[in-house]
Protein backbone atom coordinates (compact mmCIF):
# COMPACT_ATOMS: atom_id res chain seq x y z
CA UNK A 1 0.00 0.00 0.00
CA UNK A 2 1.47 3.33 -1.02
CA UNK A 3 1.77 6.06 1.55
CA UNK A 4 -0.71 8.91 1.20
CA UNK A 5 0.68 12.40 1.64
CA UNK A 6 -2.13 14.43 0.12
CA UNK A 7 -5.25 12.27 0.09
CA UNK A 8 -5.15 10.82 3.59
CA UNK A 9 -8.45 12.42 4.56
CA UNK A 10 -10.21 12.17 1.22
CA UNK A 11 -13.39 10.21 1.56
CA UNK A 12 -13.80 10.81 5.30
CA UNK A 13 -17.07 12.42 6.25
CA UNK A 14 -16.71 16.21 6.56
CA UNK A 15 -13.00 16.00 5.79
CA UNK A 16 -13.09 19.69 4.86
CA UNK A 17 -13.95 20.85 8.37
CA UNK A 18 -11.37 21.92 10.90
CA UNK A 19 -12.76 19.50 13.48
CA UNK A 20 -12.04 16.47 11.34
CA UNK A 21 -8.70 17.94 10.32
CA UNK A 22 -7.66 18.50 13.93
CA UNK A 23 -8.77 15.00 14.90
CA UNK A 24 -6.24 13.67 12.39
CA UNK A 25 -3.25 15.59 13.73
CA UNK A 26 -4.15 18.68 11.71
CA UNK A 27 -2.19 21.86 12.48
CA UNK A 28 0.25 19.79 14.52
CA UNK A 29 2.99 20.75 12.07
CA UNK A 30 2.02 24.41 12.25
CA UNK A 31 2.40 24.21 16.03
CA UNK A 32 5.78 22.55 15.70
CA UNK A 33 6.98 25.13 13.19
CA UNK A 34 5.73 28.21 15.01
CA UNK A 35 6.68 27.01 18.51
CA UNK A 36 9.96 25.25 17.86
CA UNK A 37 11.53 25.98 14.50
CA UNK A 38 13.44 28.86 12.98
CA UNK A 39 12.41 29.98 9.47
CA UNK A 40 15.82 28.91 8.15
CA UNK A 41 15.35 25.38 9.46
CA UNK A 42 12.03 25.05 7.66
CA UNK A 43 13.60 26.29 4.45
CA UNK A 44 16.49 23.83 4.72
CA UNK A 45 14.14 20.88 5.20
CA UNK A 46 12.08 21.79 2.12
CA UNK A 47 15.29 22.24 0.14
CA UNK A 48 16.52 18.83 1.28
CA UNK A 49 13.23 17.26 0.19
CA UNK A 50 13.80 18.67 -3.28
CA UNK A 51 10.07 19.28 -3.59
CA UNK A 52 9.49 20.05 -7.26
CA UNK A 53 6.67 22.35 -8.33
CA UNK A 54 3.42 20.60 -9.17
CA UNK A 55 2.05 23.42 -11.32
CA UNK A 56 3.87 22.30 -14.43
CA UNK A 57 7.46 23.42 -14.56
CA UNK A 58 8.86 21.30 -11.73
CA UNK A 59 11.10 23.95 -10.23
CA UNK A 60 12.27 23.05 -6.69
CA UNK A 61 10.16 24.97 -4.17
CA UNK A 62 12.92 25.35 -1.58
CA UNK A 63 15.27 26.91 -4.10
CA UNK A 64 12.54 29.31 -5.21
CA UNK A 65 11.87 30.39 -1.63
CA UNK A 66 15.59 30.89 -1.14
CA UNK A 67 15.66 33.48 -3.95
CA UNK A 68 13.51 35.88 -1.95
CA UNK A 69 15.71 38.61 -0.48
CA UNK A 70 15.64 38.49 3.32
CA UNK A 71 16.62 41.95 4.48
CA UNK A 72 14.33 44.20 2.54
CA UNK A 73 11.95 46.85 3.80
CA UNK A 74 9.11 45.91 1.44
CA UNK A 75 6.32 43.49 2.21
CA UNK A 76 6.60 40.02 0.69
CA UNK A 77 3.74 38.05 -0.78
CA UNK A 78 2.75 34.48 -1.43
CA UNK A 79 0.49 33.75 -4.39
CA UNK A 80 -1.08 30.34 -4.42
CA UNK A 81 -1.76 29.23 -7.94
CA UNK A 82 -5.19 27.62 -7.93
CA UNK A 83 -6.04 28.65 -11.46
CA UNK A 84 -6.09 25.03 -12.66
CA UNK A 85 -6.66 25.88 -16.28
CA UNK A 86 -4.53 23.26 -18.00
CA UNK A 87 -7.02 21.02 -19.82
CA UNK A 88 -7.08 17.57 -18.27
CA UNK A 89 -6.22 18.88 -14.79
CA UNK A 90 -8.54 18.78 -11.79
CA UNK A 91 -6.30 17.80 -8.87
CA UNK A 92 -6.18 21.13 -7.04
CA UNK A 93 -9.96 21.17 -6.91
CA UNK A 94 -9.83 17.85 -5.06
CA UNK A 95 -7.35 19.16 -2.49
CA UNK A 96 -9.34 22.33 -1.86
CA UNK A 97 -12.67 20.51 -1.68
CA UNK A 98 -11.60 17.58 0.44
CA UNK A 99 -8.79 18.98 2.55
CA UNK A 100 -8.67 22.78 2.43
CA UNK A 101 -6.86 22.94 5.76
CA UNK A 102 -3.96 20.92 4.38
CA UNK A 103 -3.40 23.68 1.84
CA UNK A 104 -3.78 26.37 4.51
CA UNK A 105 -1.19 24.62 6.64
CA UNK A 106 1.18 24.50 3.69
CA UNK A 107 0.64 28.21 3.15
CA UNK A 108 1.27 29.03 6.80
CA UNK A 109 4.52 27.04 6.91
CA UNK A 110 5.79 28.44 3.61
CA UNK A 111 4.97 31.99 4.70
CA UNK A 112 6.74 31.46 8.00
CA UNK A 113 9.84 30.15 6.24
CA UNK A 114 10.04 33.12 3.88
CA UNK A 115 8.77 35.87 6.21
CA UNK A 116 5.49 36.53 4.41
CA UNK A 117 2.45 38.09 6.07
CA UNK A 118 -0.02 38.21 3.22
CA UNK A 119 -1.02 35.37 0.91
CA UNK A 120 -3.51 35.34 -1.95
CA UNK A 121 -5.10 32.19 -3.27
CA UNK A 122 -5.78 32.90 -6.94
CA UNK A 123 -8.53 30.48 -7.81
CA UNK A 124 -10.16 30.06 -11.18
CA UNK A 125 -13.44 31.93 -11.46
CA UNK A 126 -15.54 28.89 -12.34
CA UNK A 127 -14.68 27.27 -8.99
CA UNK A 128 -17.08 29.52 -7.06
CA UNK A 129 -18.10 26.74 -4.70
CA UNK A 130 -14.49 25.76 -4.08
CA UNK A 131 -13.64 29.39 -3.31
CA UNK A 132 -16.46 29.52 -0.77
CA UNK A 133 -15.11 26.38 0.85
CA UNK A 134 -11.62 27.89 1.10
CA UNK A 135 -13.04 31.08 2.61
CA UNK A 136 -14.89 29.06 5.22
CA UNK A 137 -11.72 27.13 6.05
CA UNK A 138 -9.79 30.39 6.47
CA UNK A 139 -12.45 31.62 8.90
CA UNK A 140 -12.24 28.39 10.87
CA UNK A 141 -8.47 28.53 11.06
CA UNK A 142 -8.48 32.20 12.10
CA UNK A 143 -11.00 31.45 14.86
CA UNK A 144 -8.49 28.94 16.30
CA UNK A 145 -5.62 31.40 15.99
CA UNK A 146 -3.76 29.52 13.26
CA UNK A 147 -4.20 32.62 11.10
CA UNK A 148 -4.35 36.35 11.65
CA UNK A 149 -2.33 38.40 14.10
CA UNK A 150 0.11 36.82 16.54
CA UNK A 151 -0.46 33.23 15.51
CA UNK A 152 -0.46 30.86 18.53
CA UNK A 153 0.77 33.80 20.57
CA UNK A 154 4.22 33.64 19.02
CA UNK A 155 4.24 36.94 17.19
CA UNK A 156 3.93 35.72 13.61
CA UNK A 157 1.16 37.36 11.53
CA UNK A 158 -0.45 35.98 8.40
CA UNK A 159 -3.61 36.81 6.48
CA UNK A 160 -4.86 34.71 3.61
CA UNK A 161 -7.28 36.03 0.97
CA UNK A 162 -9.17 34.15 -1.70
CA UNK A 163 -9.05 35.93 -5.05
CA UNK A 164 -11.20 34.63 -7.88
CA UNK A 165 -10.05 34.77 -11.49
CA UNK A 166 -12.55 35.22 -14.27
CA UNK A 167 -11.92 32.78 -17.09
CA UNK A 168 -8.50 33.12 -18.72
CA UNK A 169 -6.10 30.19 -19.05
CA UNK A 170 -3.15 32.53 -19.36
CA UNK A 171 -3.67 33.78 -15.80
CA UNK A 172 -2.25 30.46 -14.59
CA UNK A 173 1.11 31.59 -15.95
CA UNK A 174 2.78 33.12 -12.95
CA UNK A 175 3.49 36.62 -14.21
CA UNK A 176 0.08 36.91 -15.87
CA UNK A 177 -1.35 35.85 -12.54
CA UNK A 178 0.46 38.75 -10.89
CA UNK A 179 -0.88 41.23 -13.43
CA UNK A 180 -4.35 39.83 -12.99
CA UNK A 181 -4.11 40.05 -9.20
CA UNK A 182 -3.08 43.67 -9.53
CA UNK A 183 -6.34 44.33 -11.34
CA UNK A 184 -5.13 44.37 -14.93
CA UNK A 185 -5.45 42.31 -18.07
CA UNK A 186 -3.52 39.07 -17.69
CA UNK A 187 -0.64 39.86 -20.01
CA UNK A 188 2.55 38.03 -18.95
CA UNK A 189 5.58 40.06 -17.93
CA UNK A 190 9.09 39.90 -19.24
CA UNK A 191 11.47 37.87 -17.04
CA UNK A 192 13.86 38.83 -15.49
CA UNK A 193 13.15 40.42 -13.10
CA UNK A 194 11.79 37.25 -11.51
CA UNK A 195 8.83 37.47 -9.12
CA UNK A 196 11.08 36.47 -6.20
CA UNK A 197 12.64 39.92 -6.43
CA UNK A 198 9.94 42.00 -8.15
CA UNK A 199 6.54 40.37 -8.10
CA UNK A 200 3.15 41.42 -6.78
CA UNK A 201 2.81 45.21 -6.38
CA UNK A 202 6.54 45.43 -7.12
CA UNK A 203 7.44 43.36 -4.05
CA UNK A 204 9.23 40.03 -3.60
CA UNK A 205 6.74 37.25 -4.27
CA UNK A 206 6.62 33.48 -4.11
CA UNK A 207 4.23 31.72 -6.46
CA UNK A 208 3.43 28.08 -5.86
CA UNK A 209 0.84 25.63 -7.00
CA UNK A 210 -1.79 24.27 -4.58
CA UNK A 211 -0.43 20.72 -4.67
CA UNK A 212 3.16 21.88 -4.15
CA UNK A 213 2.26 23.70 -0.94
CA UNK A 214 0.08 20.86 0.27
CA UNK A 215 3.17 18.63 0.45
CA UNK A 216 4.95 20.96 2.86
CA UNK A 217 3.28 19.85 6.13
CA UNK A 218 4.29 16.22 5.48
CA UNK A 219 7.88 17.19 4.73
CA UNK A 220 8.24 19.19 7.92
CA UNK A 221 6.42 16.66 10.08
CA UNK A 222 8.20 13.57 8.76
CA UNK A 223 11.44 14.91 7.39
CA UNK A 224 12.85 15.19 3.89
CA UNK A 225 14.13 11.60 3.97
CA UNK A 226 10.70 10.13 4.42
CA UNK A 227 9.38 12.32 1.61
CA UNK A 228 11.96 11.20 -0.93
CA UNK A 229 11.39 7.57 0.04
CA UNK A 230 8.10 8.00 -1.79
CA UNK A 231 8.97 8.55 -5.40
CA UNK A 232 12.53 9.29 -6.33
CA UNK A 233 15.51 10.80 -4.61
CA UNK A 234 15.69 13.88 -6.83
CA UNK A 235 12.00 14.01 -7.54
CA UNK A 236 10.39 12.93 -4.32
CA UNK A 237 6.91 12.39 -3.04
CA UNK A 238 3.72 11.46 -4.77
CA UNK A 239 1.66 13.09 -7.49
CA UNK A 240 -2.04 13.41 -7.85
CA UNK A 241 -2.47 11.82 -11.24
CA UNK A 242 -5.73 12.98 -12.74
CA UNK A 243 -6.81 10.39 -15.28
CA UNK A 244 -9.59 11.22 -17.71
CA UNK A 245 -10.84 10.27 -21.13
CA UNK A 246 -11.42 6.76 -22.42
CA UNK A 247 -10.73 4.77 -19.26
CA UNK A 248 -13.07 2.77 -17.08
CA UNK A 249 -12.30 4.62 -13.85
CA UNK A 250 -11.39 8.23 -14.44
CA UNK A 251 -10.37 10.10 -11.30
CA UNK A 252 -7.56 11.21 -9.02
CA UNK A 253 -4.88 8.71 -8.04
CA UNK A 254 -2.19 9.60 -5.55
CA UNK A 255 0.83 7.50 -6.48
CA UNK A 256 4.58 7.75 -5.96
CA UNK A 257 6.37 9.81 -8.53
CA UNK A 258 7.88 7.42 -11.02
CA UNK A 259 4.86 5.10 -11.19
CA UNK A 260 4.58 3.58 -14.64
CA UNK A 261 2.19 5.29 -17.02
CA UNK A 262 1.00 1.91 -18.23
CA UNK A 263 0.03 0.95 -14.67
CA UNK A 264 -1.73 4.25 -14.13
CA UNK A 265 -3.92 3.67 -17.16
CA UNK A 266 -4.41 -0.09 -17.06
CA UNK A 267 -4.12 -0.94 -13.38
CA UNK A 268 -5.34 2.07 -11.42
CA UNK A 269 -7.74 3.69 -13.88
CA UNK A 270 -9.23 0.33 -14.82
CA UNK A 271 -7.98 0.13 -18.40
CA UNK A 272 -9.72 1.22 -21.55
CA UNK A 273 -13.37 2.17 -21.45
CA UNK A 274 -15.66 -0.57 -22.72
CA UNK A 275 -12.66 -2.57 -23.90
CA UNK A 276 -11.80 -0.12 -26.66
CA UNK A 277 -8.32 -0.13 -28.08
CA UNK A 278 -5.71 2.29 -26.79
CA UNK A 279 -4.40 4.82 -29.29
CA UNK A 280 -2.54 7.59 -27.52
CA UNK A 281 -2.19 9.43 -24.24
CA UNK A 282 -1.45 13.00 -23.24
CA UNK A 283 0.54 12.47 -20.03
CA UNK A 284 0.69 15.86 -18.30
CA UNK A 285 -2.14 18.18 -19.28
CA UNK A 286 -2.93 19.30 -22.81
CA UNK A 287 0.40 21.06 -23.33
CA UNK A 288 2.31 17.80 -22.93
CA UNK A 289 3.25 16.08 -26.20
CA UNK A 290 1.21 12.97 -26.92
CA UNK A 291 2.65 9.47 -26.40
CA UNK A 292 1.72 6.44 -28.50
CA UNK A 293 1.20 2.80 -27.50
CA UNK A 294 4.89 1.89 -27.75
CA UNK A 295 5.87 4.85 -25.53
CA UNK A 296 3.77 4.24 -22.43
CA UNK A 297 6.17 1.91 -20.67
CA UNK A 298 7.55 4.93 -18.95
CA UNK A 299 7.99 6.14 -15.37
CA UNK A 300 5.98 9.23 -14.56
CA UNK A 301 8.63 11.58 -13.26
CA UNK A 302 9.90 14.88 -14.61
CA UNK A 303 13.16 13.61 -16.06
CA UNK A 304 11.85 10.42 -17.70
CA UNK A 305 9.19 12.38 -19.54
CA UNK A 306 11.65 15.01 -20.70
CA UNK A 307 13.77 12.18 -22.06
CA UNK A 308 10.73 10.93 -23.98
CA UNK A 309 10.32 14.49 -25.37
CA UNK A 310 7.12 14.99 -23.44
CA UNK A 311 6.34 16.51 -20.06
CA UNK A 312 4.96 15.50 -16.66
CA UNK A 313 3.42 18.97 -16.41
CA UNK A 314 0.31 18.95 -14.24
CA UNK A 315 0.09 15.12 -14.31
CA UNK A 316 -3.29 15.26 -16.01
CA UNK A 317 -3.43 12.04 -18.05
CA UNK A 318 -5.85 12.15 -20.99
CA UNK A 319 -6.41 8.77 -22.61
CA UNK A 320 -7.44 8.54 -26.26
CA UNK A 321 -8.92 5.45 -27.91
CA UNK A 322 -8.52 4.02 -31.37
CA UNK A 323 -11.85 5.30 -32.66
CA UNK A 324 -10.90 8.92 -32.01
CA UNK A 325 -9.59 10.86 -34.96
CA UNK A 326 -6.35 12.69 -34.25
CA UNK A 327 -7.60 15.46 -36.49
CA UNK A 328 -10.41 16.06 -33.99
CA UNK A 329 -7.87 16.07 -31.18
CA UNK A 330 -5.70 18.53 -33.08
CA UNK A 331 -8.74 20.69 -33.79
CA UNK A 332 -9.65 20.90 -30.12
CA UNK A 333 -6.07 21.72 -29.16
CA UNK A 334 -5.75 24.40 -31.86
CA UNK A 335 -9.06 25.97 -30.90
CA UNK A 336 -8.04 26.13 -27.26
CA UNK A 337 -4.68 27.84 -27.75
CA UNK A 338 -5.91 30.31 -30.33
CA UNK A 339 -8.72 31.23 -27.95
CA UNK A 340 -6.42 31.53 -24.95
CA UNK A 341 -3.44 33.36 -26.46
CA UNK A 342 -3.35 36.75 -24.75
CA UNK A 343 -2.31 38.31 -28.04
CA UNK A 344 0.73 40.09 -26.75
CA UNK A 345 3.35 38.22 -28.83
CA UNK A 346 2.86 37.97 -32.57
CA UNK A 347 4.11 34.39 -33.11
CA UNK A 348 1.61 33.02 -30.59
CA UNK A 349 -1.32 35.25 -31.55
CA UNK A 350 -1.00 34.81 -35.31
CA UNK A 351 0.55 31.34 -35.28
CA UNK A 352 -2.24 29.80 -33.25
CA UNK A 353 -4.92 31.56 -35.27
CA UNK A 354 -3.47 30.25 -38.54
CA UNK A 355 -3.02 26.73 -37.26
CA UNK A 356 -6.63 26.72 -36.13
CA UNK A 357 -7.84 27.98 -39.52
CA UNK A 358 -5.90 25.34 -41.41
CA UNK A 359 -7.00 22.49 -39.14
CA UNK A 360 -10.63 23.57 -39.35
CA UNK A 361 -10.38 23.78 -43.11
CA UNK A 362 -9.03 20.22 -43.24
CA UNK A 363 -11.86 19.09 -40.99
CA UNK A 364 -14.35 20.61 -43.44
CA UNK A 365 -12.86 18.39 -46.14
CA UNK A 366 -11.03 21.26 -47.83
CA UNK A 367 -7.49 20.30 -46.91
CA UNK A 368 -4.70 20.94 -49.39
CA UNK A 369 -1.41 19.14 -49.97
CA UNK A 370 1.20 20.84 -47.83
CA UNK A 371 -1.22 21.74 -45.06
CA UNK A 372 0.38 19.45 -42.49
CA UNK A 373 3.80 20.86 -43.34
CA UNK A 374 2.43 24.35 -42.86
CA UNK A 375 0.95 23.51 -39.48
CA UNK A 376 4.25 22.00 -38.45
CA UNK A 377 6.21 25.02 -39.65
CA UNK A 378 3.88 27.49 -37.93
CA UNK A 379 4.14 25.55 -34.67
CA UNK A 380 7.92 25.43 -34.93
CA UNK A 381 8.00 29.17 -35.40
CA UNK A 382 6.23 29.66 -32.08
CA UNK A 383 8.76 27.64 -30.09
CA UNK A 384 10.78 29.82 -27.74
CA UNK A 385 9.72 32.98 -29.50
CA UNK A 386 7.27 34.33 -26.96
CA UNK A 387 7.44 36.21 -23.66
CA UNK A 388 5.78 33.42 -21.72
CA UNK A 389 5.66 29.67 -22.31
CA UNK A 390 2.12 29.66 -23.77
CA UNK A 391 3.66 29.69 -27.23
CA UNK A 392 5.62 26.56 -26.36
CA UNK A 393 2.65 25.01 -24.61
CA UNK A 394 0.73 25.26 -27.87
CA UNK A 395 3.58 24.35 -30.19
CA UNK A 396 4.73 21.20 -28.39
CA UNK A 397 1.53 19.14 -28.54
CA UNK A 398 0.82 20.31 -32.08
CA UNK A 399 4.31 19.34 -33.26
CA UNK A 400 4.02 15.94 -31.60
CA UNK A 401 0.67 15.16 -33.23
CA UNK A 402 1.79 16.25 -36.67
CA UNK A 403 4.95 14.14 -36.33
CA UNK A 404 3.50 11.01 -34.76
CA UNK A 405 0.21 10.91 -36.66
CA UNK A 406 1.27 12.40 -39.93
CA UNK A 407 -0.07 9.56 -42.04
CA UNK A 408 -3.48 9.70 -40.42
CA UNK A 409 -3.68 13.48 -40.77
CA UNK A 410 -2.64 13.27 -44.43
CA UNK A 411 -5.44 10.77 -44.99
CA UNK A 412 -8.01 13.51 -44.29
CA UNK A 413 -6.63 15.53 -47.16
CA UNK A 414 -7.72 14.59 -50.67
CA UNK A 415 -5.47 15.00 -53.65
Amino acid at each position, binding site marked *: MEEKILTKLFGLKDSHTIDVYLKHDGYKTTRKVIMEMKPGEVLEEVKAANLRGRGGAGFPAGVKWGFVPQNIDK*PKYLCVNAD*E*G*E*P*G*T*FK*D*RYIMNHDPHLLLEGIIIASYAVGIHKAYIYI*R*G*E*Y*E*NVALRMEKAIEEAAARRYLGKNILGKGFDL*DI*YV*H*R*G*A*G*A*YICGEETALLE*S*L*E*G*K*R*GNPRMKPPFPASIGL*FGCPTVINNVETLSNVPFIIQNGAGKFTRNGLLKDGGTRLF*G*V*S*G*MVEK*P*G*IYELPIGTSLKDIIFKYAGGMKKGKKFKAV*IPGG*MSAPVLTADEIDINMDFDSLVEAKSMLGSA*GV*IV*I*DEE*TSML*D*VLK*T*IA*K*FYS*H*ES*CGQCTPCRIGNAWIRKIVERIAEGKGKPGDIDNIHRLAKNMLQKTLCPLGDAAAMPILAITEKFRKELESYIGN
Partner: protein
Amino acid sequence: MNPEYSDIRKKKIDELISGYPERRAAILPVLHITQKEFGQITSAEEKLVAELLDIKPIEVHEVVTFYSMFNQKKVGKYHIQICSNLTCTLLEAGNLLEYLQNKLGIKPGETTNDEKFTLSTVECLGACEEAPVMMVNFDYHGHLDKKKIDKLLDNLK
Protein backbone atom coordinates in the same frame (compact mmCIF):
# COMPACT_ATOMS: atom_id res chain seq x y z
CA MET B 1 -31.13 55.27 -13.93
CA ASN B 2 -27.69 54.59 -12.57
CA PRO B 3 -27.15 51.11 -11.13
CA GLU B 4 -26.69 50.85 -7.37
CA TYR B 5 -25.55 47.98 -5.17
CA SER B 6 -27.61 46.56 -2.34
CA ASP B 7 -26.33 47.43 1.14
CA ILE B 8 -25.02 43.93 1.82
CA ARG B 9 -23.04 43.84 -1.39
CA LYS B 10 -21.73 47.35 -0.82
CA LYS B 11 -20.42 46.24 2.56
CA LYS B 12 -18.87 43.13 1.06
CA ILE B 13 -17.13 45.27 -1.56
CA ASP B 14 -15.61 47.59 1.05
CA GLU B 15 -14.39 44.57 2.96
CA LEU B 16 -12.88 43.07 -0.19
CA ILE B 17 -11.03 46.24 -1.14
CA SER B 18 -9.44 46.42 2.31
CA GLY B 19 -7.63 43.13 1.57
CA TYR B 20 -5.36 44.75 -1.01
CA PRO B 21 -2.72 47.46 -0.81
CA GLU B 22 -4.17 49.03 -3.98
CA ARG B 23 -7.88 49.51 -4.60
CA ARG B 24 -7.81 48.44 -8.22
CA ALA B 25 -6.50 45.00 -7.27
CA ALA B 26 -10.02 44.18 -6.09
CA ILE B 27 -11.41 44.57 -9.59
CA LEU B 28 -12.09 40.91 -10.40
CA PRO B 29 -13.87 40.14 -7.12
CA VAL B 30 -15.79 43.41 -7.43
CA LEU B 31 -16.79 42.62 -11.00
CA HIS B 32 -18.04 39.19 -9.89
CA ILE B 33 -20.24 40.86 -7.30
CA THR B 34 -21.35 43.45 -9.83
CA GLN B 35 -22.39 40.74 -12.25
CA LYS B 36 -24.31 38.95 -9.49
CA GLU B 37 -26.12 42.18 -8.68
CA PHE B 38 -26.93 43.44 -12.17
CA GLY B 39 -26.63 40.31 -14.31
CA GLN B 40 -24.33 41.95 -16.84
CA ILE B 41 -21.47 44.38 -17.14
CA THR B 42 -22.17 47.17 -19.59
CA SER B 43 -20.69 50.65 -19.65
CA ALA B 44 -23.00 51.76 -16.82
CA GLU B 45 -21.63 49.07 -14.50
CA GLU B 46 -18.09 49.72 -15.68
CA LYS B 47 -18.47 53.34 -14.67
CA LEU B 48 -19.75 52.34 -11.27
CA VAL B 49 -16.80 50.00 -10.68
CA ALA B 50 -14.36 52.64 -11.90
CA GLU B 51 -15.65 55.10 -9.33
CA LEU B 52 -15.37 52.54 -6.56
CA LEU B 53 -11.79 51.70 -7.42
CA ASP B 54 -10.53 55.17 -8.35
CA ILE B 55 -9.65 54.23 -11.89
CA LYS B 56 -10.91 55.25 -15.31
CA PRO B 57 -13.88 53.48 -16.92
CA ILE B 58 -11.65 52.48 -19.82
CA GLU B 59 -9.38 50.64 -17.40
CA VAL B 60 -12.36 48.67 -16.18
CA HIS B 61 -13.41 48.00 -19.76
CA GLU B 62 -9.92 46.69 -20.57
CA VAL B 63 -10.30 44.13 -17.82
CA VAL B 64 -13.90 43.19 -18.55
CA THR B 65 -13.06 42.41 -22.17
CA PHE B 66 -10.03 40.28 -21.28
CA TYR B 67 -11.83 37.69 -19.16
CA SER B 68 -14.43 35.33 -20.55
CA MET B 69 -16.69 35.20 -17.50
CA PHE B 70 -18.04 38.72 -17.68
CA ASN B 71 -21.26 39.05 -19.63
CA GLN B 72 -21.23 42.18 -21.68
CA LYS B 73 -24.83 41.64 -22.57
CA LYS B 74 -27.69 40.21 -20.64
CA VAL B 75 -27.84 36.44 -20.26
CA GLY B 76 -30.81 34.26 -19.41
CA LYS B 77 -31.86 33.23 -15.94
CA TYR B 78 -29.90 30.02 -16.45
CA HIS B 79 -26.56 30.23 -18.17
CA ILE B 80 -25.67 26.83 -19.55
CA GLN B 81 -21.99 26.45 -20.36
CA ILE B 82 -20.96 23.16 -21.85
CA CYS B 83 -17.32 22.17 -21.98
CA SER B 84 -15.88 21.82 -25.47
CA ASN B 85 -12.37 20.82 -24.48
CA LEU B 86 -10.56 17.55 -25.07
CA THR B 87 -11.77 15.04 -22.49
CA CYS B 88 -15.36 16.20 -22.82
CA THR B 89 -15.23 15.98 -26.62
CA LEU B 90 -13.76 12.48 -26.39
CA LEU B 91 -16.84 11.60 -24.38
CA GLU B 92 -19.36 13.02 -26.85
CA ALA B 93 -19.82 16.58 -25.59
CA GLY B 94 -20.14 17.58 -29.25
CA ASN B 95 -23.34 15.57 -29.63
CA LEU B 96 -24.71 16.97 -26.41
CA LEU B 97 -24.07 20.51 -27.59
CA GLU B 98 -26.06 19.74 -30.71
CA TYR B 99 -28.79 18.24 -28.58
CA LEU B 100 -28.94 21.35 -26.40
CA GLN B 101 -29.05 23.59 -29.46
CA ASN B 102 -32.01 21.70 -30.85
CA LYS B 103 -33.77 21.44 -27.55
CA LEU B 104 -33.46 25.14 -26.77
CA GLY B 105 -33.62 26.36 -30.36
CA ILE B 106 -30.55 28.57 -29.93
CA LYS B 107 -26.90 28.52 -30.90
CA PRO B 108 -23.93 29.08 -28.56
CA GLY B 109 -23.89 32.74 -27.53
CA GLU B 110 -27.66 33.11 -27.84
CA THR B 111 -30.48 33.47 -25.34
CA THR B 112 -33.99 32.04 -25.60
CA ASN B 113 -36.78 34.51 -26.28
CA ASP B 114 -38.24 34.06 -22.82
CA GLU B 115 -34.80 34.96 -21.43
CA LYS B 116 -34.71 31.73 -19.48
CA PHE B 117 -31.65 30.09 -21.03
CA THR B 118 -28.37 31.22 -22.50
CA LEU B 119 -26.13 28.62 -24.13
CA SER B 120 -22.34 28.87 -24.35
CA THR B 121 -19.39 26.59 -24.91
CA VAL B 122 -16.43 26.88 -22.55
CA GLU B 123 -12.91 25.56 -22.30
CA CYS B 124 -11.96 22.85 -19.80
CA LEU B 125 -13.88 23.36 -16.55
CA GLY B 126 -11.39 21.40 -14.46
CA ALA B 127 -13.75 18.51 -13.89
CA CYS B 128 -12.63 16.15 -16.64
CA GLU B 129 -13.07 13.04 -14.50
CA GLU B 130 -16.81 13.68 -14.78
CA ALA B 131 -16.80 14.40 -18.52
CA PRO B 132 -18.91 15.42 -20.29
CA VAL B 133 -19.49 18.40 -18.03
CA MET B 134 -21.50 21.60 -18.07
CA MET B 135 -22.18 24.44 -15.71
CA VAL B 136 -25.61 25.88 -15.06
CA ASN B 137 -24.85 29.23 -13.50
CA PHE B 138 -22.19 28.14 -10.96
CA ASP B 139 -23.32 24.55 -10.45
CA TYR B 140 -21.38 21.76 -12.11
CA HIS B 141 -23.16 18.82 -13.72
CA GLY B 142 -21.12 15.85 -14.87
CA HIS B 143 -21.48 12.42 -16.49
CA LEU B 144 -24.01 14.01 -18.81
CA ASP B 145 -26.17 12.28 -21.35
CA LYS B 146 -29.35 13.32 -23.11
CA LYS B 147 -31.60 11.89 -20.43
CA LYS B 148 -29.76 13.68 -17.69
CA ILE B 149 -29.94 16.96 -19.57
CA ASP B 150 -33.70 16.54 -20.07
CA LYS B 151 -34.23 15.94 -16.40
CA LEU B 152 -32.01 18.81 -15.38
CA LEU B 153 -33.66 21.35 -17.66
CA ASP B 154 -37.14 20.17 -16.76
CA ASN B 155 -36.39 20.93 -13.14
CA LEU B 156 -35.30 24.49 -13.82
CA LYS B 157 -38.20 26.80 -13.28
